[in-house]
């Protein structure tokens, strides 16, 4: 009841004309920034931080938070329409979202994503209201061993539960881990595999790799067609989701929201891991797992719900304990300090109007985003009616400019181009591309957590067995590695049908 009263006071703060205007500006900017490859929500928030000087703290926070969750809506657009993830958390969206667009269902994909994001966002805000303190306590039980195993599970589950060869998927993940080794050692700071190059000192960022592997590679494959490149057929009735689609996706949205929030609460986990875990879990529960990777609306709904939920979940440790849960909340924390507000465990009691005003603004922001996106989804999808031959060069230019914008370095553009070509060859060799990018994103967390765990346990592996949460995650990792072999053995034992069983997974 007390939370409800505080929320009402928060609405009183958020619903002033000035604050409403800045919430709208924040979510609109966030959506646009999220759609642009190369500029993620945290970079957009950092770029716009100077604009907030002189603003009342509550107004500034509301605008910056709007950019944060608005970015999640925006990342969906380019992932679905042109297979270029706008930011890391949209990588899994691109996997199924673009396939749906190719099937003429871009509008349905965008609509489901918008509604799923809205439900997840609002659900997460409600959870923040009531569970901030309790969930922070649970999240703080996660330490290095749990983070290492969670990141490992993310990679092994994606590789082994995907369609096609599990060995190829794991090999691609290892390739991603090798790329992540380039640069400086996260613990000792010495150079590794830089071969004397100054450009490689900072390592290879995942975003140029993702832009190349997904965006450029797909365009090159499309250009192979010698017949006129037809625009993607989008029938009017396919622009909206059907009732059957909503029925299929409702549980995916619910599961994605819950998983996303829990993962988002864990400091350092973030919406990328949340989207991945939700996708893998949804494939497990789906009635049509064979559709995953080929245009599964429920897979898309799960990722989108999870990434939105996680962005809000990341606020829990920030508001309750002063610990940022993600890059975006780190920028929010910096904004608080610049605005003269002291973050920390006492923030909720010392500045209730600020905190509850922010929470109330997130309800309003999510409603604005839904109102903006739902009617516009068919319009965005209609862009695909433009003959692809005219979109292709523009996508290539946009991809390279987006890559340049991440570091303002031509070296990054060269990396993007190189991975564009590598991505093209990976498609030809039937190698899945998502595990590479995911491994690249998760590698720093994996390595630092593993080495810190070994330090904590003085060189033994006991720490992974002695901690209950770590043990559960370890069992998950082992099962995800063993599962493809079990499935292959079962397929071999069962009498072979005349046609090839499309559900069989060849582990080798």
């Amino acid at each position, binding site marked *: 009841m007390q939370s409800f009263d505080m929320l009402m006071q928060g609405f009183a703060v958020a619903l002033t004309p000035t604050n409403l205007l800045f919430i709208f500006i924040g979510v609109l900017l966030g959506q*646009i920034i999220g759609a*642009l490859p190369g*500029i993620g929500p945290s970079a957009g928030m950092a*770029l716009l931080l100077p604009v907030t000087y002189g603003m009342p703290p509550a107004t500034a926070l509301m605008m910056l938070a709007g950019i944060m969750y608005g970015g999640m809506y925006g990342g969906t657009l380019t992932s679905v329409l042109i297979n270029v993830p706008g930011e890391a958390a949209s990588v899994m969206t691109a996997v199924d979202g673009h396939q749906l667009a190719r099937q003429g269902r871009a509008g349905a994909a965008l609509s489901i994503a918008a509604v799923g994001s809205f439900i997840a966002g609002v659900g997460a805000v409600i959870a923040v209201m009531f569970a901030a303190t309790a969930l922070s306590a649970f999240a703080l039980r996660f330490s290095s061993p749990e983070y290492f195993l969670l990141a490992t599970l993310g990679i092994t589950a994606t590789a082994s539960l995907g369609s096609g*060869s599990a*060995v*190829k998927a*794991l*090999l691609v993940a*290892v*390739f991603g*881990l*090798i790329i992540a*080794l380039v640069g400086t*050692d996260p*613990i*000792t700071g*010495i150079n*590794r*595999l830089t*071969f004397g190059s100054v450009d490689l000192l900072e390592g290879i960022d995942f975003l140029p790799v993702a832009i190349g592997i997904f965006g*450029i590679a797909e365009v*090159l494959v499309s*250009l*192979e*067609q*010698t017949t006129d*490149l037809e625009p993607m057929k989008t029938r009017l009735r396919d622009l909206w989701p059907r009732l059957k689609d909503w029925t299929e996706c409702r549980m995916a949205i619910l599961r994605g929201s819950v998983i996303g929030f829990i993962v988002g609460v864990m400091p350092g986990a973030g919406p990328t891991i949340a989207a991945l875990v939700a996708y893998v879990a949804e494939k497990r529960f789906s009635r049509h797992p064979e559709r995953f990777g080929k245009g599964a609306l429920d897979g898309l709904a799960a990722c989108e719900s999870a990434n939105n939920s996680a962005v809000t979940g990341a606020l829990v440790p920030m508001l309750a304990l002063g610990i940022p849960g993600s890059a975006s909340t780190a920028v929010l924390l910096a904004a608080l300090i610049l605005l003269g507000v002291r973050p920390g465990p006492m923030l909720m009691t010392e500045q209730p109007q600020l905190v509850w005003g922010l929470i109330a603004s997130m309800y309003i922001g999510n409603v604005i985003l839904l109102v903006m996106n739902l009617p516009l989804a068919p319009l965005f999808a209609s862009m695909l009616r433009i003959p692809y*031959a*005219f979109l*292709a*060069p*523009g996508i*290539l*230019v*946009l991809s*390279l*400019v987006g890559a*340049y*914008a991440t570091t*303002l370095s*031509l070296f990054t*553009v*060269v990396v993007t*181009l190189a991975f*564009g*070509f590598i991505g*093209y060859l990976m498609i*030809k*060799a*039937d*190698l899945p591309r998502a595990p590479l990018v995911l491994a690249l994103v998760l590698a720093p967390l*994996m*390595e630092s957590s*593993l*080495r810190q765990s*070994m*330090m904590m346990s003085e*060189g033994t592996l006991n720490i992974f067995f002695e901690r209950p949460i770590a043990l559960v995650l370890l069992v998950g990792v082992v099962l995800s590695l063993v599962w493809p072999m079990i499935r292959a053995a079962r397929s071999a034992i069962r009498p072979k049908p005349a046609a090839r069983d499309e559900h069989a997974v060849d582990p*080798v």
Partner: protein
Amino acid sequence: MRRLDIATAVIMLALSAIVIAGLSGYAFWLDYAPGPAFAPYLIAGSGILLSLLLLVAALRGGREPADWPDAFGGRRVLYTVIGLILFVAALPFLGFAFSGIVFMLVVLLVVLRRRMVPSLATTAITVALVQGIFVHWLSVKLPTGPWGF
């Protein structure tokens, strides 16, 4: 596909070997803590194991053909890749706007053989949008040529 799988396995074996060789002077273990070579060696070891598994499967497995493009489609891809390389090479000298315009027009008119007017319109819209959003709104300094843009 068999040859591609073998090539993939060989490339990954080579990469794993490079990782091991490149970190040969680094410590695997430092007193009670893993050293900078700890994770790389584990990763390289996994790469070797998985590459060998793939190699064995490729040598034993089926012979379904790879999905390569025909000659005409292959040329479109090749010319586009060459165009991209030249675009990136020209960026620091000719700037984004000019290089982008030339690249897009070459791809649209020569590679994809589109008509002149829609190609010009597409190029103008794309370059203008990128300039407007990245340069003027987000203040991202894109490379400029001798003409200042």
